[in-house]
């Protein structure tokens, strides 16, 4: 349990770091962080339940995209803000590294396995995003605050 909390907080801080690098307004930092943290926690949970990190990525990205859409409506901001920052923990950075590593080491079997896995993760991420973003906006209407039209951000 403690481990999950630590993982969530670290993923939250990591996501906020990226929000800062992309010049997201300060008021949205926490929401970006929660989106990223939630995505990562579901990734970790999914990895305990089964062993494929492609499936885990798909589950995590679905959760993340739903969170991003809820926050987008709730905070009257474009969904991009939460989605791009929150996706970073799931982007296959490790996949890129190990693909390069095995290629350099001449371990062709491991190389092709890693390259294929990285590609599959990218496809899973794409699928999850497309799936959730194509849901009709009416579903998320309940999270809309009344003052969206008059609220001024920065």
């Amino acid at each position, binding site marked *: 349990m403690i481990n999950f909390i630590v993982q969530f907080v670290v993923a939250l801080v990591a996501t906020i770091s990226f929000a*800062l690098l992309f*010049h997201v307004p300060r008021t949205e930092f926490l929401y970006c962080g929660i989106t990223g943290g939630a995505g990562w926690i579901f990734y970790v949970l999914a990895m305990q339940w089964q062993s494929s990190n492609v499936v885990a990525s798909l589950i995590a990205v679905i959760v993340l995209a739903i969170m991003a859409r809820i926050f987008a409506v709730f905070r*009257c*901001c474009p969904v991009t803000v939460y989605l791009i920052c929150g996706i970073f*923990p799931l982007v296959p950075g490790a996949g890129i*590294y190990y693909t390069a590593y095995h290629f350099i080491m001449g371990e062709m079997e491991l190389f092709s396995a890693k390259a294929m896995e990285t590609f599959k993760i990218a496809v899973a991420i794409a699928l999850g*995003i497309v799936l959730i*973003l194509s849901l009709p906006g009416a579903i998320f209407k309940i999270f809309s605050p009344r003052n969206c039209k008059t609220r001024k*951000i*920065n």
Partner: protein
Amino acid sequence: MPDQKAILQLVVHAGEILLSGGAEIFRVQETMERIAKAYGANKLHVYVLTNGLFASVEDDGKTLNSELRYVPRAAMHMGKIVAINDLSRRIETGKISYSQAMNELDRINVLPFTNKYARIAACAMGAACFCYLYGGGVWDALAAFISGVILQIFLLFTEKQTLNRIVLNILAAALASIVSFIMLNVFGIGSNLDKIIIGAIIPLVPGMALTTSIRDFANGDYLSGTIRLIDALLVASSIAIGVGGVLVGIGLITGVAV
């Protein structure tokens, strides 16, 4: 009420800022159409690509004016996207006059970037956190932190230079790997080179290009989606080349396989 040409100017300006801030095609197109409609230009035609946009207004079946803008790749600025989104929503309520909207756009266009030191800290923190998430220990995270500091200083330094994006990413990834290697083997910080390097290169990974590409494809903007997908693939390959090159170099110089 502003005339149609003036509306076109406003709309194109808004689209330009959105696009250079890194918004997806659909958002740029929709925002432009909404603003035009709010000011009474009902026949606006826009066509937006990743690096340029075309727009024209039509009245009584003939084109009044058309505008074309080339929007070169710029640094992602989410603050601008949020601000324009907000502005367009307020314009739609009809409470903002044309000149007010123009002033707002000029203000948004020069919204500052986050200060340098905060960006260095953020890059370092991001690298350290990801190193930890991918299974590195606390000391590995510290090594990634230092690599992150040096990486962001390098990125800030090369920001003004017109360095090719591929070369830039190869150099940056190589630098991050070298620093990680030095941290581990010279200063003895950390124990897993792979985890440290993975953390250190994360700030370079094309998450934004990949996500925007997916969204463009989903909205049917295949051309723009392809442009961004190629960007993402090139950056990912550049990172792999940078890291791989350093690993080979280390192997050749020290005589041990890493």
